[in-house]
């Protein structure tokens, strides 16, 4: 299978005065061509940081401490500013959370789309009209300012901007969080329609596991900067205790309090979910690797991971 995006051992830290605080640790996953990969996690788990590091748009206080981000086989962490600019928006594009804030209030929708277009031989106006039609907007909307249209329409404009260069992967960073239920449904339908028509891979970030279960081909669960599980919702149930809590399957009452705390290893190296895990054991007090179940799915948990390996 062909990878559009492959991330190898990515670790990102935030600089706070003199010390580095890890934000993302040991991120290993890939998105296949034309796949819809969902990333689910709480606020603060590092989802947006991951999206921004893929775009290489991290704020200056963040540093990538190790790892590779391979986009169509090319490590984008190594390329210079000039080439990353030609990659952004063309091979990889991003849709943000709050569409109103991400459109420049001084320019009309048409100007935004013109800007999104990278050098093309086709007729620009025709391409813009066609893309607007793809996202379900009239061509007349080009003359309108962003604040004059609804949130759903703004998000459609953002999608049109992301789509216009026909990128191989679109990152959607919580694109529906700022929208109501009905509009969310419409936007999700639009994204799946676009995926059927143009086959871009979509890296869909959300905090809504149910939404992810209904649309995702594969789902990654993120916790405290670690990917704790990757599973296929149509084939198997998630096994990681945290996924269980997210789904509401596991009763939190059962919580093993009596585990003696080992002082031999650094607490930062322990399983990231140790403190809240209902199934925690003595052996979780160490560094837990991500265990691949098969080529597509895996889990970061010794208890469940080992079962799969056997």
């Amino acid at each position: 299978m062909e990878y559009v995006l492959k991330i190898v051992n990515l670790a990102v830290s935030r600089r706070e005065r003199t010390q580095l605080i890890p934000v993302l640790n040991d991120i290993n996953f890939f998105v296949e061509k034309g796949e819809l990969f969902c990333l689910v996690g709480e606020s603060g788990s590092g989802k947006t940081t991951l999206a921004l590091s893929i775009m290489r748009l991290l704020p200056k206080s963040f540093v990538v401490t190790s790892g590779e981000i391979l986009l169509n086989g090319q490590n984008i962490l190594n390329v210079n500013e000039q080439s990353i600019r030609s990659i952004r928006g063309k091979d990889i594009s991003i849709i943000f959370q709050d569409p109103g804030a991400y459109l420049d209030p001084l320019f009309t929708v048409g100007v935004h789309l013109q800007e999104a277009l990278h050098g093309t031989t086709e007729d620009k106006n025709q391409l813009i009209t066609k893309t607007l039609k793809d996202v379900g907007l009239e061509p007349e909307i080009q003359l309108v300012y962003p604040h004059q249209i609804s949130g759903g329409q703004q998000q459609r404009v953002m999608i049109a901007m992301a789509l216009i260069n026909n990128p191989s992967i679109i990152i959607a960073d919580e694109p529906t969080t700022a929208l109501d239920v009905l509009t969310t449904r419409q936007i999700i339908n639009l994204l799946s329609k676009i995926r059927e028509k143009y086959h871009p891979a979509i890296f869909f970030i959300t905090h809504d596991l149910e939404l992810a279960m209904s649309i995702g081909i594969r789902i990654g669960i993120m916790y405290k900067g670690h990917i704790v599980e990757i599973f296929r919702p149509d084939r198997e149930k998630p096994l990681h205790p945290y996924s269980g809590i997210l789904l509401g399957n596991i009763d939190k009452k059962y919580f093993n309090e009596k585990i003696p705390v080992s002082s031999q290893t650094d607490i930062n190296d322990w399983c990231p979910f140790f403190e809240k895990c209902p199934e925690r054991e003595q052996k979780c007090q160490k560094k837990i690797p991500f265990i691949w179940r098969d080529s597509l799915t895996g889990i970061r948990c010794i208890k469940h991971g080992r079962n799969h390996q056997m």
Partner: protein
Amino acid sequence: MKNFFQRLKNHSKLAFFSFWFLVIFYIVSFLADILAPYHFDYQFRDKPYHPPTKIHFFDTQGNFHIRPFVYNTVVDDPVFRSYREDTSKIYPIKFFVDGPERKILFFFKTKKYLFGVDKPAGIFLFGTDTYGRDIFSRLLYGGRISLSISIAGVIISFTLGMITGGIAGYFGGIIDQILMRLVEILMVFPSFYLMLSLRAMFPLNLSSIQVYLLIVLILSLIGWAGLARIIRGMVLSIKEEDYVLAAKSLGLSHWRILIFHILPNTFSYTITALTISVPGYIIGEAALSLLGLGIQEPYPSWGNILSSTIGNLRVLGDAPWLLLAGFFIFVVLINFNLLGDALRNVLDPKNW
């Protein structure tokens, strides 16, 4: 553009009025040499400090004249410079009268004046100054200099402030440090003394065009520093906005983001700041002229017309029409302030 006027009108009738008032002011002062009844340095040697001429419709016998007329005046009391009308002959106000040849609109030589009266009478709508020159004509010519200096100065300082503030704010780091320290060096000098010392660096015997350009340069060199600092501050906050991140994610270059997305978003402030700073230039020019360092006689500017009243309290009492230049500065100033306040709201698409 049509939208703009409509919005300005809807937003504030007063500002709409100010806008057209200023437009008319600028047009009138641009056409000064067509509209003025006398050339700015034409002197009536026998009529210094002449009060505004009375315009009559009825003669001494009580006959009505359709064409308004004036009387010639003669000095009544040379000490107090009071004038008496000589009612023996009427001088009707005529269009396209002949006078000394002068250039109009910088190119065309002509002897015709738009309106006037036959000699030896004179028509002084706003009186005359110490050399017997018509204040009305001098105010029109002076407006051309004072108003254009302000616009030219604003454009130069706006450009400098935008470039410096934008680059310093957007790129930050060492560039920011260097540019802002330069700006601060300019700002630590009290601006009035900086203006005087800059002027003192150049010789006094410059041609009027040179002086004009020099004043524009001096005024804008003083004005841009504050603007640059404020723009830098705005750029610092705007570059953290989400739409700048979105622009980056489209793969736009730094310059494009700075010029098309960040600087235009400072306009809501800068346009207002600029309109409000225009009067500062008019006053700056007036201040230089007042001290004799600005536009030199016989060329008029509102500043040096006003300066002729300085140090002569009797003039203020006897010939208050000389203060009209100050009144004009005041009126333009007020209108620019009113317009500036309204422009901020009108130019922001969010208010449309």
